């Protein structure tokens, strides 16, 4: 996916976007002003409720950015762990509501694919869904072509073809999977959210919810 061409903000006042990604154990927060992102990535090990707001507070302190300088909040909407995603969304909704700033949902697989904008073939962005299943989407030239689909790893293997496979590839033995750096995903949540903000978009903060990609009924509630 080509990096969106973003004009610098016209306003004199500093403009910061906070990004939150709790799609899985790989959690992240970021602050972004259109040029350089500051990122904290950590292994939340299902303790997203305990750690997420503290990490955002920590990042604000590290960068010396005042809470009042935030102009928008972007949040990963999945696919991912339903419960973990709702931690990030509740936190992002709290920020949007109390600071009166726009909320922007960003696809987690979209943020994975955006890290592979150099790829000369289709990209399949994968999240694990527990019990040997995966949720994935296919991208070509940055555009979503297929998904999100909740399938077995075997079904993904059949569908992958010559695509570049990336994301939560732990389950995916035998794939030529691309390793992505920690924090890369939340940085792209910030960048993609920023692009949406400058395009004048925002989501309804009350109604925004995760992508609920189901498999068969027995797989309805991923761990």
């Amino acid at each position, binding site marked *: 996916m080509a990096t969106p061409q973003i004009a610098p903000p016209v306003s004199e006042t500093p403009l910061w976007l906070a990004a939150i990604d709790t799609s899985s154990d790989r959690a992240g927060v970021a602050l972004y002003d259109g040029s350089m992102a500051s990122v904290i990535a950590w292994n939340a090990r299902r303790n997203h409720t305990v750690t997420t707001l503290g990490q955002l*507070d920590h990042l604000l302190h590290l960068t010396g950015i005042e809470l009042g300088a935030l102009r928008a909040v972007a949040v990963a909407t999945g696919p991912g762990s339903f419960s973990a995603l*709702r931690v990030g969304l509740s*936190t992002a909704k709290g920020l949007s509501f109390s600071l009166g700033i726009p909320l922007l949902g960003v696809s987690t697989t979209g943020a994975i694919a955006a890290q592979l904008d150099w790829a000369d073939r289709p990209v399949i962005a994968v999240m694990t869904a527990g019990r040997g299943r995966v949720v994935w989407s296919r991208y070509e030239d940055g555009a979503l072509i297929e998904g999100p689909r909740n399938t077995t790893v075997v079904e993904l293997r059949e569908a992958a073809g010559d695509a570049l496979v990336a994301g939560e590839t732990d389950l995916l033995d035998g794939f030529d999977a691309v390793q992505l750096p920690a924090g890369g995903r939340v940085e792209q949540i910030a960048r993609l959210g920023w692009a949406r903000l400058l395009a004048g978009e925002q989501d309804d903060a009350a109604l925004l919810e995760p992508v609920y990609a189901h498999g068969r009924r027995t797989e309805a509630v991923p761990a």
Partner: protein
Amino acid sequence: MNVLGIETSCDETSAAVVRDGRDVRSNVVSSQIELHRAHGGVVPELAARAQLTAIIPVVEAALQLAEVGLEDIDAIAVTRGPGLAGSLLVGANFAKTVAYARSIPLVGVNHLEAHLYANWLSPPGDEPGEQPAFPMLALLVSGGHTELLLMTGHGRYEQLGRTLDDAAGEAFDKGARLLGLGYPGGPAIQQAAAGGDTAAFALPRAWLGDSHDFSFSGLKTALLREVEPYRLPDEDDEPEDDAPFRKHRPPRFAEGMPVADLAASFQEAIVDVLAVKTATAARTFETPQVVLAGGVAANRALRERLTGEIEATSGTMLRVPALSYCTDNAAMVAAAGYYALRRGAQSGWELDVSSRLPVGR
């Protein structure tokens, strides 16, 4: 001091503004009963989803009804457990972030303790009445809890007894399902029991000796035994739909099943045990006040029976909060939070939720 209360422990999303722990300025409750009815009970994943989309509108409505803005809120109290983890975390994360962004104190509240604080609340427009007197004996009965609690002062609780298996409200739900009466079970059983003979079926009571604990699972098994002869086989020609959450299919019965007598006998067996054991505890602990709390407090037979038992016990009186403060609501959370803050309690940004949380913790 204005406290914003937030309650998302199960299938209700609620927010309230309460002044000085007693004066309810607003108490908004968004119920999901319709959402869960098709499944015959609360589906945790669906409950959590509904919490996430209800939280902002409900908090907004509570502020609006109280005619205040966020800048008029001095602290936020939020339920941290017990309850459904997926539901709890929506309220907890939203509450802590709003408190953080506004730089106001946050306090996590135990949902069971909050039910007791319903007794401090006075409805909008009313002058706060007399303070509840300690020690206070509370029978807390709902879909999730059946507890006998002794409250000896603010923040001081003793759990005297609890259910060893099903909660009373859960027993009503399961009984209603066995009788094909629908969800929620309490109101369905109460309605079906009207005109029925409470002594028609000799259903068992688990007295459990001198213990203040309860048990309702044997009762459910006994009801199943009475219903079994009338049960027709399920129609299994219905195609399985592909929806991610299973739909509830009510059982089918032969004609002539004495539903009213069965419902009345079943309800009586639950009410009997609850009322008698509560009165016994009131005598044992010589509490001047007994309170009924929780959603099952709406059951007419229980109210009448408990009133009778407590009136027959000298030196104690029964207090029942307004019904809207008995079922899950955020005003009780705000009240509990106010008294906790006054004792110096405060939560940090690492506040966690806990699906199992005993009273006093």
